[in-house]
């Protein structure tokens, strides 16, 4: 077998590090080599994270982030908007997406060649009762490695056993329900293959950001959305919308925003939301006095 590189893209709290770990551990148990490296900073729920998994017949020495993945596993379709998620994709790369849409539609929509899709969140909600897409996606991933990538008979069964064992420490119900999510992920994943060539940036170290000559001294900040700080806008599943006709500029929201995303003019008037700096926590909408109700949270469309 040649070396295969899998890059997992997820949000903090999706459980995808767990999935990647179970996958890598079980691949290693087949006798070939595997390595798994999670990349996250001071990870918070909702923050985009990456996990690299390499598998090879030979010991894996390299420790750098995967540049040209054979497969990416994306636990939230909105992450495809990030350049680092599409980085290094080629016409060979298989993209496994957590989505309710058909893979053929997703391939067209995002300009991808090989798309596998699965409503992993839906499966998790039905099977486990929680919106963690990780184990259903693991089932789909294992299915996709059955065309010779992991050349071991009985591999899916071994991963299923590992899933059951992993959650067995919680409760028997948790173990069996996650096993069901795994099996449904394995059974229900759909795939579409075309000859499209995805347009992908080749981004070595995250997105291109400010140069040294452009930094303020001490890398101090005036606004959280300044170029060299990772923006939090992509974390959100919902965003605040301000109805300026209703806003009375009481500014209750302004000091409570953890991301300094409420823009206020020199005259002390609320002028809008900095959506690059907002992670969609909803505090502003919660503290907006009910008699105004100027701020409402709007779910981001898939």
């Amino acid at each position, binding site marked *: 077998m040649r070396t295969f590189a899998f890059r997992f893209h997820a949000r903090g709290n999706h459980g995808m590090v767990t999935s990647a770990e179970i996958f*890598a551990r079980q691949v290693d148990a087949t006798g070939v080599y*595997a390595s798994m490296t999670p990349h996250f*900073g001071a990870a918070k729920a909702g923050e985009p994270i990456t996990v690299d998994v390499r598998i090879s017949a030979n010991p894996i020495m390299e*420790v750098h982030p995967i*540049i040209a993945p054979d497969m990416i596993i994306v636990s939230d379709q909105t992450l495809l908007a990030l350049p680092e998620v599409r980085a290094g994709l080629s016409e060979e790369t298989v993209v496994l997406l957590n989505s309710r849409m058909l893979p053929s539609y997703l391939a067209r929509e995002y300009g991808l060649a090989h798309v596998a899709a699965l409503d992993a969140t839906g499966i998790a909600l039905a099977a486990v009762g929680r919106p963690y897409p990780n184990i259903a996606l693991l089932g789909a991933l294992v299915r996709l490695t059955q065309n010779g990538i992991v050349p071991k008979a009985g591999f899916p069964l071994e991963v299923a056993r590992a899933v059951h064992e992993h959650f067995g420490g919680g409760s028997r119900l948790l173990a069996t329900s996650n096993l069901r999510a795994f099996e449904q992920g394995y059974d229900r994943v759909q795939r579409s293959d075309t000859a499209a060539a995805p347009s992908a940036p080749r981004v*070595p*170290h995250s997105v291109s950001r400010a*140069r*040294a000559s452009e930094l303020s001294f*001490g890398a101090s900040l005036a606004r959280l959305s300044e170029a060299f700080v990772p923006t939090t806008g992509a974390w959100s599943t919902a965003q605040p919308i301000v109805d300026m006709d209703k806003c009375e500029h009481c500014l209750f929201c302004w000091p409570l925003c953890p991301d300094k995303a409420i823009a206020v003019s020199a005259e002390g008037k609320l002028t809008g939301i900095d959506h690059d700096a907002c992670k969609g926590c909803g505090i502003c909408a919660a503290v907006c006095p009910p008699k105004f109700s100027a701020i409402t949270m709007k779910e981001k469309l898939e």
Partner: protein
Amino acid sequence: MTSTIFCSGNTAAALAFRHAGVEVLALYPITPSTAAAEALALDVRDGLLDAEIIPVEGENSAMTACMGASLAGVRTATITSSQGLLYMAQQVFAAAGMRLPVVILDSTRAISAPLNVNGDHGDAMAMRAAGCIQLFARTAEELYDLTLIAFPLAETVRLPVMVCYDGFSISHTMTRVAVLSEDDARQFVGVYRPADALLALDAPRTFGPVCGPHFYTEARYSQRLALASSLAIFAELGDAYAARSGRAIRTLDAYQTVGADDIVVLLGSTAGTMRGVIDRLRETGRAVGMLSLACYRPFPEAEVREALQGAARVIVLDRSDDMGAPQGPLCTDVRSALYALPAKRPHVTGFIYGLGGRELLPDEAMKIFSLDDDPTLSGSESATYLQVRR
């Protein structure tokens, strides 16, 4: 005899502590080493390790607690990173001066400010003058090996040993690791019998006394001699360890250096990526090699000189900057070692790379072997930043 497990560097480190039979651990968890501290707490809870864990209120206290325990005559260790190591610094120097065999694991991480939890060697390098033996692991497996060796090394030389392992690229990366059985490891490490213990009631001693100009120089000089003597003891322990594990542990690993024109020198996990780069360049006919050091303090000057003397060009990669110095710390040491050559010294070029988790990519590593092609990289006698957006 070894058996294999699939685990992270943090897990391998905790397992080595368990296998070494650590008796007192003073811990203040910090990213990226937290998982190692957690694993040890579970080991103690589950009765797998008979140790006292002292949950301290900060790293300065962690080291003072270790010093107290070590003085009392038990096998002692701690784990930290970055700000934690710097906060511990005052006591690390004191532990070395008191010649206490405390083992310190440092999951190397960038130093604030700006705040960054990712890997580089800034924290470890800030401690290079503390008087500890300083080892750098290249893989999780080597981290297990070096941590086991650290205990008899510390206890024989009577100095603290700091085992450094790269944050995330070792601490969090899961790979296959071959480990000794607990019995085998315990036999290798041996029983710690302190020569002088605070609690030896028939022969009490004072440690860390006040010492004026009439003795301070002698105390420091004897510390320097002890540190220098550790190279030979490390080599002996490496051979003894190889007999049990089948893995050779040496102060430095020379890869394809014989007859090489260009040799890159580095520390830590980047050796893995660089190995692939060397292999690719060798296939194209380039005579390139790599020297990676497992032991950084004491600096194995003679061995480094011998390994590099035939090269036309030496390229040193520093994963931290020595602010204001002509070169990064490793490059300064390498240059200094080569200066003793009588004639035809290799030309030394130094690069700063990998800061705050910016792992070296193969393309970037390729560049350092084609210096003449890139005017921003060649021609400088002082440290050059390799991956910076200028």
